[in-house]
């Protein structure tokens, strides 16, 4: 009897390991085995989500497909759906708005557990008041500083509760570029003077996070989360949406590639390091060159409804939940819904000239 011995380490690898059989010979729509879940996610698993604006799609899809997606700050039932996004409802698991960077994520939960108390005061613009850490959470701001503070106190309490209630935390990494308060390093989701506030170079500074910083911040967030729930697992993904603008001095394309590369590398490192971390390749499914940019809108930035549906189908099919057809309510990614996405980055364009 003879036993076959591989002639080299590649000999017995599956087709997905080779470019030709894994990519070149396939339609871009056939790369289903690009994602093999590390752990199961059942419809009963309590799920929390945060991230950049692309993450809104993920939360929405979990809800539409009947998963146990947590929302600890739900809208009043009487509030019309077409007004939810205006007040940051129905976007994530609490009303924190978009969380673009790992540092912002970490500081959000540090603020929630009281270990970080930023010095940045409430912003006042044209007689309206804004929370600098979620300036777009109520479009047009609040009528008083007291109103902002009451809402924030409740919001942070619910944000902390998430860590106790969730068993899976889904985070979509968006950017490495941030605006930071010089006084204490507090990271702001938007540059002061765009959505609200006033830009002052003496108070705020630009920072482009390095691989080491993003990794350390995410590790710190993981540790914080698992202090509250030692069983917490994490699903990380990288938004395929490029930067609207960069303050790095680089060309915006190069700056986007830097950001996404750092974030992708961090995700890979975390997935290698921890068996409770999974990585889902949203970025690859939309923005890698085999996709030929077909899932982008003509501006090559916004992801089309078809692109979102494709990405989410790959995810849910891998988890045994089937593609959209299996969902009795259907996954309607209609134009109106797409327009509802809250993406402060878009506002940068208004300030580009």
């Amino acid at each position, binding site marked *: 009897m003879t036993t076959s011995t591989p002639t080299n380490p590649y000999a017995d690898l599956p087709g997905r390991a080779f470019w030709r059989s894994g990519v070149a010979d396939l339609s871009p729509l056939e790369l289903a085995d690009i994602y093999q879940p590390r752990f199961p996610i059942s419809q009963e698993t309590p799920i929390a989500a945060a991230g950049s604006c692309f993450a809104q799609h993920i939360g929405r899809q979990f809800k539409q497909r009947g998963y146990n997606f947590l929302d600890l700050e739900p809208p009043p039932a009487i509030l019309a759906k077409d007004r939810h996004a205006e007040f940051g409802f129905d976007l994530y698991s609490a009303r924190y708005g978009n969380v673009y960077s790992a540092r912002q994520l970490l500081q959000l939960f540090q603020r929630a557990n009281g270990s970080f108390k930023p010095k940045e005061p409430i912003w006042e613009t044209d007689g309206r008041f804004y929370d600098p850490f979620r300036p777009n959470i109520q479009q047009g701001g609040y009528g008083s500083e007291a*109103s902002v503070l009451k809402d924030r106190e409740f919001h942070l309490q619910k944000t902390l509760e998430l860590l106790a209630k969730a068993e899976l935390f889904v985070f979509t990494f968006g950017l490495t570029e941030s605006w930071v308060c010089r006084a204490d390093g507090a990271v702001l989701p938007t540059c002061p003077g765009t959505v609200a506030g006033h830009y002052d170079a003496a108070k705020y500074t630009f920072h482009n996070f390095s691989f080491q910083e993003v990794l350390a911040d995410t590790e710190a967030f993981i540790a914080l989360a698992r202090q509250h729930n030692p069983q917490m697992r994490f699903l990380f993904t990288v938004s395929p949406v490029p930067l609207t603008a960069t303050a790095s001095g680089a060309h915006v394309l190069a700056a986007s590639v830097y950001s996404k590369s750092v974030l992708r590398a961090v995700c890979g490192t975390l997935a290698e390091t921890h068996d409770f971390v999974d990585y889902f390749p949203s970025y690859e499914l939309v923005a890698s060159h085999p996709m030929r940019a077909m899932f982008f809108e003509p501006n090559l930035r916004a992801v089309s409804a078809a692109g979102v549906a494709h990405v989410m189908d790959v995810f849910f099919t891998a988890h045994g939940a089937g593609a959209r057809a299996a969902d009795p309510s259907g996954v309607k990614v209609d134009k109106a819904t797409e327009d509802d996405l809250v993406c402060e980055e878009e506002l940068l364009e208004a300030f580009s000239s």
Partner: protein
Amino acid sequence: MRTMICGNSHVGSLAKGHKLLGLSDDAITLFPLGTGRKELHPFHEVTAAGVRFSEPSYQANLEKFTGRAALGPDVRWGFCMGSHSGRLFRGRFWKWAEPDDICRPKKRPISAEVLEACIESDQRHVRAFLAAVKDAGIPLFVIACPPARDDNPAVDRGLRPEVIRHIDQRALAAFTAFLAENNIDFVAFPPEVVDRKGFLAEKYRLITQANGQRDAHHGNEAYGAVMMRRVADYLDR
């Protein structure tokens, strides 16, 4: 010009008041359109024949009580709808949440802006209907629904009366602001129907419905009489 008054269930007290006052049926016709729940969806459409109801139950009642297929400019129309706040405060949401300026500890504070958006969500289809009637050149006015009551079952379930009053007053203010912006006349309820706490006074409350069920929402015939007297005064002006 003949006047036709219609609307949601609050038209019931107006009709009783009309009868109590012995007012002539020749000048004023009162009829119900149907439940106020239907106001949460678009319920009208503008056609070549005039404004009609896309909500079948409303349209059926329009045809049944008036013989007309649409609202037209040959009649002055009074609508009793839009200023009642029951849908806004009845839900379980307000058991745990309160408007932020009266919010107590451990309750969820709801900003004035979110509350205003809730009110707009609740009133939007009534507002759209009234604006369409106005745009069509049809004479119209709006009659106030009664103020909220603090004997609402929601209070038994833990809702603070102060929250009801706050929401009711904000909703009324938002609605009357809309009417003023659109130059639509409003026949408001007089101060005498409101008690010291800001709710419908006990003597104007309907206590038991015709089917024997407790009522914690509507005005009675005395309330209807007060309002129909005001309507008559308005029409005389």
